[in-house]
Structure formats: structure tokens, C-alpha cells
């Protein structure tokens, strides 16, 4: 598609439950990025993929967070045993395989942990 598609738009989970977010990048884009925005403040980089390979995971919390980009499937970000502090909007972005191209963002998934 021509837009980065994120699902669901809103996700509510009780503390300790699992949360799974999905992202379909723009067709032809080979880079996928996940960012976390807490309380409408700064965007924090989590992880990026080049096709199905992890490209940069320096922002991923060591525990509970995992992500995948498998062929012919939406990319996913999964949080195990969620905590209140995981409440945030999670944005996915994608960019083309050639250099010096901006990232295109999805609408985000608002995750609320109760």
C-alpha cells in the first residue's frame, strides 16, 4: 500500500498481560522502524529492520519487548507482561531501500495499560 498501516488503533491491556502491535510498511520499503511516544513527548527509537533482519536494536528494552518482520506478514512488536509505564503511542515508520530517504509514519497504536 501507499501508507504505513498500523493495527490496532487502540489497545487496552491489564497490567501483566501481553500486547501485540502490527505494522504493514509501504510496499517496496525495506526498512521498518518502531518508535515509542510517551505522554505526547519525545519519540524514543526502539528497533529497526532491514527486510526481515534486525538492523538496529539499540533502543529495545532488554526484557519483555520483542519484534519481528517476517516475509509476507506484517511486522509486529510484542510486549510481554506489560507494565503501566508501557502506556504510550507506538509508531511504525518505513523507508525505501535506497539512501537518503525520509521515513514515512503510520497513525500509531495507542496502548493503554490499566
Amino acid at each position, binding site marked *: 500500500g501507499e501508507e504505513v498501516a498500523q493495527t490496532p488503533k487502540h489497545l487496552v491491556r491489564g497490567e501483566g498481560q501481553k500486547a501485540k502491535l502490527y505494522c504493514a510498511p509501504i510496499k517496496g520499503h525495506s526498512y521498518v522502524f518502531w518508535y515509542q511516544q510517551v505522554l505526547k513527548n*519525545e519519540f524514543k527509537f526502539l528497533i529497526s529492520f532491514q527486510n526481515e533482519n534486525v538492523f538496529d536494536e539499540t533502543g529495545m528494552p532488554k526484557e519483555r519487548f520483542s519484534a519481528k518482520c517476517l516475509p509476507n506478514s506484517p511486522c509486529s512488536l510484542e510486549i510481554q507482561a506489560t507494565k503501566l509505564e508501557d502506556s504510550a503511542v507506538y509508531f511504525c515508520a518505513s523507508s525505501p531501500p535506497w539512501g537518503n530517504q525520509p521515513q514515512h509514519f503510520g497513525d500509531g497504536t495507542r496502548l493503554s495499560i490499566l
Partner: protein
Amino acid sequence: AQSVSQHNHHVILSEAASLELGCNYSYGGTVNLFWYVQYPGQHLQLLLKYFSGDPLVKGIKGFEAEFIKSKFSFNLRKPSVQWSDTAEYFCAVIVKAAGNKLTFGGGTRVLVKP
């Protein structure tokens, strides 16, 4: 670690006023610079970008930004704002030596009064 600072958290101005939003970054090497805008309830949209060449960059909707390398700055300007420019504006940087992830500033919320 690199950082991006946006000096103004909130700006309120009237239609037809001029707008300038400050952005400074802390990394001395090669950078790509971006301004994104987030209208209420929408996803991040790219306003303009700088990769190389002319340091004065023109973007969409009448916005422009000037890269001043000696000041590590990339300030955003618009000569005459409209009510529809009410939004949150984010400056972002890619440090080439650190991969292709975006490092964002804290954002500036702009309210244009009709």
C-alpha cells in the same frame, strides 16, 4: 549520545504572524535533518528535510528551514501562519555514523489563533 533540543515547548501566535521554531542538535559529524508536523489526531508528516547542498531548505505549506552547521542548528520558519498550522512540530536528526534511526526533539506545540 546525540540529542536534539527544541527550545520552545509552546508557541501561541495570531494568524499572519511569522513563526520561527528553534532546533539544535549535539552531534558534530554528518547528519540528516528533518522537520515533521503532527496535526491533531493525525500521524507525523514530513515538512522538509536536509541531506546536503543548499542549507536553506524549502518544504511544503510555505515552511522553510536553515541549516547552520557552525551553530548545530536547523530552525524552522514560516513568514505568515494560518490557523491550519496549529499542530505539534518535531525536529529530528539522523546521525549517519549511528545508523538510520531518527532522534527527535521534544516537540513544540503551536497554536495559531484565528
